[in-house]
């Protein structure tokens, strides 16, 4: 391996190293503060490392990895997401678990898995990344051992994830059996070579789709989402909603492009149906939901549906839309979960609708942030979510997916209902003098930063748009 290779994979390597050191740190002395600081530092360094990259993009590390602008951009996104989750975690765990340190190790490892996914161009690296992430997620989800809901969630996630990866693997095996190669580009060439792909390959794709769909939490592989979000510690829920879904989505895009999946109308239709189902099921489930965690889970299902519409639109507009929406979605989700995390106290999480009554008059700033996040999810102007939705619709219109768009309109109206209901609860006048609880600096700082970002993207998105465009064009 040349130094360039190492340079290209620097973020991953850094995080791996960090995790090892972290273990040693724990072995030496348990200290939450130190541990937290160290992990934060690791993430920051990894982020900085992004700027020291070989010039000749895309940089191929045969056969497993390719590092291109696309990968880099998303690496940045994932790292940033991880970082903000970290900032939100400290206080959350400080007031709960007595053994907090391993959490950070697991978080590092999961992130490593995610990063691997982002730049993998081969079944093996795909599998490795996926499993690294999943297995550390089992631990993370079940981290709060004292809370029974936590390990119920853990076991559920474990079994279902294993199930889905079994499907994924079997699918891969089928494809491999026909194509004789496991890297995406190779498969793409093989498919080009033959005019009509054999049923095994298409079926293989179908099975892989199950694995992917599970991680994305799209219908009908969505059922785990609410339980896991509810059971998992809030930062972890945020992490699953953003990092794991995001990296999987990126992988899907890369794979789909390499094997030029847009040529297969069957797959297109499968995705279209899944998109419709996800939108409707997600929104319907969320409609009357009183548990905010579950509500966010369901809403994320429907948002995946929206993203799929952009994904189906294809072309550059579609891809850009997916990326932009993903960014907006990541910011918003972390923000929303972050607010929940800050509001939670040592005994139980702030998750029921009642916990938010009159929040605006108790914690104006937090409530404002949460409102902004919810409005962004609902796609109301001045927020990134609006531009994202606009981008998606634009992509859809440009490739004339009128049916899907009509459904999208219907669904955003349904969605609006429960987002607004939540907002309304926060603005309800509350009787009695409000008891203000001190908020941790880091958390508030992270959330404020996220909100500023949200509004900035909502009002002046040109910079990000330009970035994404340039990245997409570089991919060709």
């Amino acid at each position, binding site marked *: 391996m040349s130094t360039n290779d190492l340079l290209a994979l620097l973020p991953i390597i850094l995080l791996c190293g960090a995790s090892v050191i972290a273990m040693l740190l724990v072995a030496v002395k348990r200290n939450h503060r130190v541990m937290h600081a160290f992990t934060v530092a690791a993430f920051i360094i990894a982020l900085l490392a992004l700027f020291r990259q070989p010039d000749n993009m895309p940089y191929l590390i045969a056969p497993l990895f390719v590092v291109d602008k696309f990968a880099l951009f998303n690496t940045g996104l994932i790292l940033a997401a991880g970082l903000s989750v970290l900032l939100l975690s400290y206080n959350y765990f400080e007031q709960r678990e007595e053994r907090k340190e391993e959490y950070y190790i697991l978080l590092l490892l999961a992130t490593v898995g995610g990063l691997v996914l982002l730049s993998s161009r081969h079944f093996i690296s795909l599998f490795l990344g996926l499993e690294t992430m999943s297995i550390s997620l089992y631990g993370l989800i079940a981290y709060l051992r004292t809370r029974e809901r936590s390990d119920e969630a853990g076991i559920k996630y474990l079994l279902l994830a294993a199930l889905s990866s079994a499907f994924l693997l079997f699918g891969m095996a089928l494809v491999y059996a026909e194509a004789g190669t496991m890297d995406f580009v190779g498969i793409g060439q093989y498919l080009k070579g033959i005019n009509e792909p054999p049923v095994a390959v298409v079926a293989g794709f179908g099975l892989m789709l199950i694995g992917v769909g599970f991680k994305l939490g799209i219908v009908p592989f969505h059922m785990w989402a609410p339980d896991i979000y509810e059971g998992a510690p809030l930062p972890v829920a945020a992490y699953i909603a953003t990092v794991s879904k995001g990296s999987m989505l990126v992988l899907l895009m890369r794979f789909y492009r390499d094997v030029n999946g847009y040529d297969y109308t069957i797959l297109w239709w499968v995705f279209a149906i899944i998109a419709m189902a996800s939108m409707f099921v997600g929104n319907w489930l969320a409609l009357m939901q009183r548990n905010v965690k579950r509500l966010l889970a369901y809403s994320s299902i429907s948002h995946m549906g929206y993203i799929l519409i952009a994904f189906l639109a294809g072309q550059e507009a579609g891809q850009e839309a997916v990326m932009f929406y993903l960014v907006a979605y990541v910011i918003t989700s972390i923000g929303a979960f972050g607010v929940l995390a800050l509001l939670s106290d040592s005994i139980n999480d702030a998750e029921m609708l009642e916990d938010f009554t009159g929040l605006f008059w108790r914690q104006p700033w937090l409530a404002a942030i949460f409102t902004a996040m919810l409005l962004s999810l609902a796609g109301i102007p001045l927020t990134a979510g609006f531009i994202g939705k606009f981008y998606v619709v634009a992509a859809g219109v440009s490739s004339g997916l009128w049916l899907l768009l009509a459904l999208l309109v219907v669904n955003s109206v349904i969605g609006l209902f429960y987002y607004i*209901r939540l907002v309304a609860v926060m603005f309800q006048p509350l009787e009695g003098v409000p008891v203000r609880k001190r908020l941790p600096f880091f958390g508030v700082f992270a959330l404020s930063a996220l909100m500023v970002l949200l509004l900035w993207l909502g009002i002046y998105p040109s910079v990000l748009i330009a970035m994404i465009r340039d990245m997409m064009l570089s991919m060709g």
Partner: protein
Amino acid sequence: MILLAFILFPLIGAFLAWASAAVHTSLPRWVALLVMLAGLILAAGIWIQPEPASIAGADWRYVYHQPWMPRFGISLSLAMDGLSLLMIVLTFFLGALAVLVSWDEIQDRTGFYFFNLLFVLGGIAGVFLVMDLFLFYFFWEVMLIPMYFLIGIWGHGHRLYAALKFFLFTQAGGLLMLLSILGLYFVHGASTGVYTFSYAELLQTPMAQGTGRWLMLGFMAAFLVKLPAFPFHTWLPDAHTEAPTAGSVILAGLLLKTGAYGILRFVLPLFPEASHAFGEWFMLMGAIGILYGGQLAYAQTDFKRLVAYTSVSHMGFVLVGAFAFNELAYQGVVMQMITHGISTGALFMIAGVLYERLHTRELEKMGGLWAALPGLGTITMVFVMASLGLPGLGNFIAEFLILAGSWQAYPWIAVLAAIGLVVATVYSLRIMQKVFFGMTLREFKLKDMSLREAVMLLPLVIAIIWLGLFPQRVIDTAAKGAPSVAFQHKDK
């Protein structure tokens, strides 16, 4: 630049008001009032001064242009012609009054209240000025949230339900409009290669008949809901009834007008063919709205609800006139937008004044109030007469022009609409009878209008009479802003 001021004044003022609440709870209303008056003076100043030479061929008095999202060809471009000028004047006029209305009514959380109030007004001003379709949609949506808060936090009984209903309806319509805007964007791009949201560019978009019609319907969806036209009107009674007085005033006086404005500014010029094709149906829709709204208005026992339904009826005239395609009707529509804003706004204020005294909106619980409140009664009489279209008051000019114009397009629809005048008489007189005449249930010992109430009601009286006797100033101003398509008599 001056145009930007109209939008920025309220928006900045909004934040100022919010901040000032920290200093003293009564400070926000002063801030708000000053901001509104400043805007009003500015707008009035523009109106008074002689019309400048039209800029760039079109009849724009001022234009402002600034790129925003080049990727989509979105730019922050504002322009003002006679129509938008009138609407801006109306916006700040009613805005200032809305502040006065809330003076005593709103006691808690004044800072946030006036923040929302000014924000709505800023959004509305934006809608009336923007010349970029994306931006139009942007402001169109921006208005909703603060309006939602106004209704949802400071409203009456079923405020949450009403606010939510309002929000969902408008949002649904708005999204359909978004689809159409984008459709237009891509159609234009495909045919000319220029991808832009600029109104001026999109005006000459060549498109197939079918496409044009679908896109037009998308736009109409938003505007019909906002107008509101039968059968999309059911959000309005709830919203108007539950909103605080100022909210009702702004809803009836300004928000509904954005729908009418949208039709005049966008639908007619962008889709002449489709507008002609569907014209008769929309006119019919309007006529039905007039009668249906009138019938429901008569059936109500809640003062504000009654007035709300009269809005449905009156905005029906707008729809009838907008699709009659001749100058008479067009001028009538503009006139109707202004006069309805004033007269209905006034009626809601009166409802508020009564509510402050009686703590009820139930007509059955009122009656015989003339003895106690002769002054208020006289003013109410003026606006009741205005709402039934008594000559000498602004609404008559509007309705006469609309009917005379629409008669030339479709006589039978004009006849239907004219029957609305009788219905209007029926429900309007019912207000007077139930509130001021008839038996006094209990001997009210109420003080007549306070100075503040007089200050906020008299300008409206003067305005409505002025519009009734000297409408020419308005008509001249609006004439330049008229979309040329609005004058093409359809060749039958």
